[in-house]
């Protein structure tokens, strides 16, 4: 699983220092701040965090789906296989979305056209991006329905979205997303609305398809249990920033940022006997509130003076360059070096 970490493969997606802002009452406020990450072929990066941490805005920024009237990506770069997406026109983006990269969402019903058969919806993308004839596109659409394991696919080809269950609709969405063999799949809480016995089926399907196609996947979720089962690498977000990043086993073995640690300790577990829960006091500061230092400082038990004044950089943890955290107290930040920065 983690052998992708040290592989020499070039990243499929590389996001550098992006800031995405929204206009609220006439002023611009950042929802995603100075965010960087990359994903390699056949790798799953999970972005995990609670409501309002900026995880969905990150995915929408990559897709360039931020509303132009209220939002903007004000700095940074996003490269898909070396191509600078922020320099692309809307027309160019339309050719890229659904082709080189695609996205699936939490609620498939709102992303499917209710008055079009699912076969036609999948075929549409193939005709648009690949210029296939109706017959060729239909044949490929049927293969895709079989790929995502829709039972008796030929007979369901002409069914409408409402005739499918929630889990089956998400399979249809996955089939549409994979129609043009994307190099990158962005999955935003794709199993959150599903029952757990269906969730495991979808997670297994996504893992299998990733393995088979070698695509890179960015999996956005609030659920640490889901992260543990699907991710190769994990980025934890809080207040618009990545505050910790590590290979999945290291993150769960050695959660280092106090927020990551607190998140794990506040989760009731089905595999543990009744244990004490440790809620995180307080709540996330709204994006309209500016803070000069660490966004987590006011809830953090380890807070020192510096946390309130200055944003900590992402720094290695325990000398491990693959495990980084933004914490003045816990990350490897030698005194001189941190003063110099």
């Amino acid at each position, binding site marked *: 699983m983690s052998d992708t970490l040290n592989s020499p493969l070039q990243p499929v997606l590389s996001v550098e220092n992006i800031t995405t802002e929204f206009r609220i009452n006439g002023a611009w406020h950042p929802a995603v701040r100075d965010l960087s990450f990359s994903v390699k072929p056949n790798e799953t990066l999970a972005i995990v965090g*609670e*409501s309002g941490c900026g995880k969905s805005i990150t995915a929408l920024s990559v897709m360039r789906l931020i509303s132009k009237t209220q939002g903007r990506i004000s700095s940074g770069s996003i490269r898909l296989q070396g191509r600078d997406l922020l320099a692309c026109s809307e027309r160019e983006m339309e050719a890229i979305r659904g082709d080189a990269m695609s996205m699936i969402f939490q609620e498939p019903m709102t992303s499917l056209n209710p008055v079009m058969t699912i076969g036609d919806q999948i075929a549409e993308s193939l005709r648009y991006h690949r210029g296939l004839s109706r017959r060729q596109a239909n044949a490929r659409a049927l293969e895709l329905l079989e790929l995502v394991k829709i*039972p008796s696919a030929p007979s369901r080809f002409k069914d409408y979205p409402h005739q499918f*269950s929630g*889990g*089956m609709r998400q399979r249809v969405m996955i089939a549409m997303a994979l129609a043009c063999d994307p190099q990158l799949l962005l999955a935003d809480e794709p199993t959150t609305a599903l*029952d*757990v*016995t*269906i*969730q*495991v*089926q979808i997670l*297994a399907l996504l893992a299998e398809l990733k393995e088979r196609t070698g695509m890179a996947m960015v999996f956005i979720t*609030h*659920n*640490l*249990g*889901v*992260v*543990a*089962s699907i*991710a190769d690498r994990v980025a934890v977000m809080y207040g618009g920033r990545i505050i910790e990043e590590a290979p*999945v*086993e290291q993150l*769960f073995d050695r959660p280092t940022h106090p927020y990551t640690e*607190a*998140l*794990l300790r*506040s*989760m*009731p*577990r*089905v*595999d*543990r*006997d*009744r*244990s004490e*829960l*440790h*809620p*995180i*006091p307080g*709540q996330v500061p709204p994006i309209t509130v500016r803070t000069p230092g660490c966004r987590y400082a006011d809830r953090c038990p380890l807070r020192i003076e510096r946390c309130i004044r200055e944003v900590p950089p992402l720094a290695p943890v325990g000398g491990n360059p693959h495990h980084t955290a933004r914490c003045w107290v816990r990350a490897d930040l030698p005194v001189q070096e941190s003063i110099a920065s």
Partner: protein
Amino acid sequence: MTTLLDVKNVSKTFVVGKGFMGSRKAKLQALHDISFSVGEGESFGIVGESGCGKSTAGRSILRLVEPDAGQVFYQGEDLLTANRKRMRALRREIQIIFQDPYASLNPRLTIGRTLAEPMLLHGVATRRDVEEKIQSVLAEVGLPPQAMQKYPHEFSGGQRQRIGIARALALDPRLIIADEPVSALDVSIQAQVLQLMEKLQRTRRLSFVFISHDLGVVRHFCRQVAVMYLGRIVEKGSVNDVFEEPLHPYTQALRAASPVPDPRAKITVAKIEGDAASAMSPPSGCHFHPRCPKAMDICRREYPAWREVGHRGVACHLYPAKAGDAHAA
């Protein structure tokens, strides 16, 4: 422990209009022969997936859904035969909190008025001392006194659930039906609300019927649990027994599919295929048999009788039934 609530053989079938102009009627058996009991100061969990009937089970206790058959004894008195006046008095003692408190709070009323209304209506407070009582219940759920003058939209999700809990507490209940009370909340906030409910359970000796799809939350909050599938209870016992060593193949699948924050945890039981069948046309025999990896011939023909295994009960042909029990289900 004395029994506070005793639900006996409750069933409920909804008639659902189907087809154009409601020409065809279909029946949906939402609850089939549901029995469980809750001790004083105890939390009883009901788990299951969408459409299994767990919410209907909770609502039928309060008669927000009228069961077709069975009995619901509250302190020995059958709620299902109580008249309207008596039921109104009893609803003071049995309160309900919902998943989405925003949907159950009147957006035009301040929190103070929302809390005052039931208190005055039930005579728990007078015009004179109502404010004092509201302040004390707000303090109990961890909200500041200024919350009284505010409207629901001014609060976050976690605070709204505290308001939902405050409203339930306003009438000094003994039993709370909590229907997915923390499912819409972020984990860090969910833990705050769970901790509040635990505190209230201790200080007020409250009993809970705690309905949830989240096995982790139920394991944390409850002592006893019932697992439901398509309108029936398929397994019942202490949370430790049921989640450590599930007997029913459905409970096993549910437990195995529940995500745990441990990348080394492997799914030990073969994951089940397919979707749950519709409650409108449940499969013959055991409703779970089409998805069950251990299904036998008898499972397709006959619904399994309820059987006791140790301190637990389970409805599954894999376990020996006592001779006399065969017809009891």
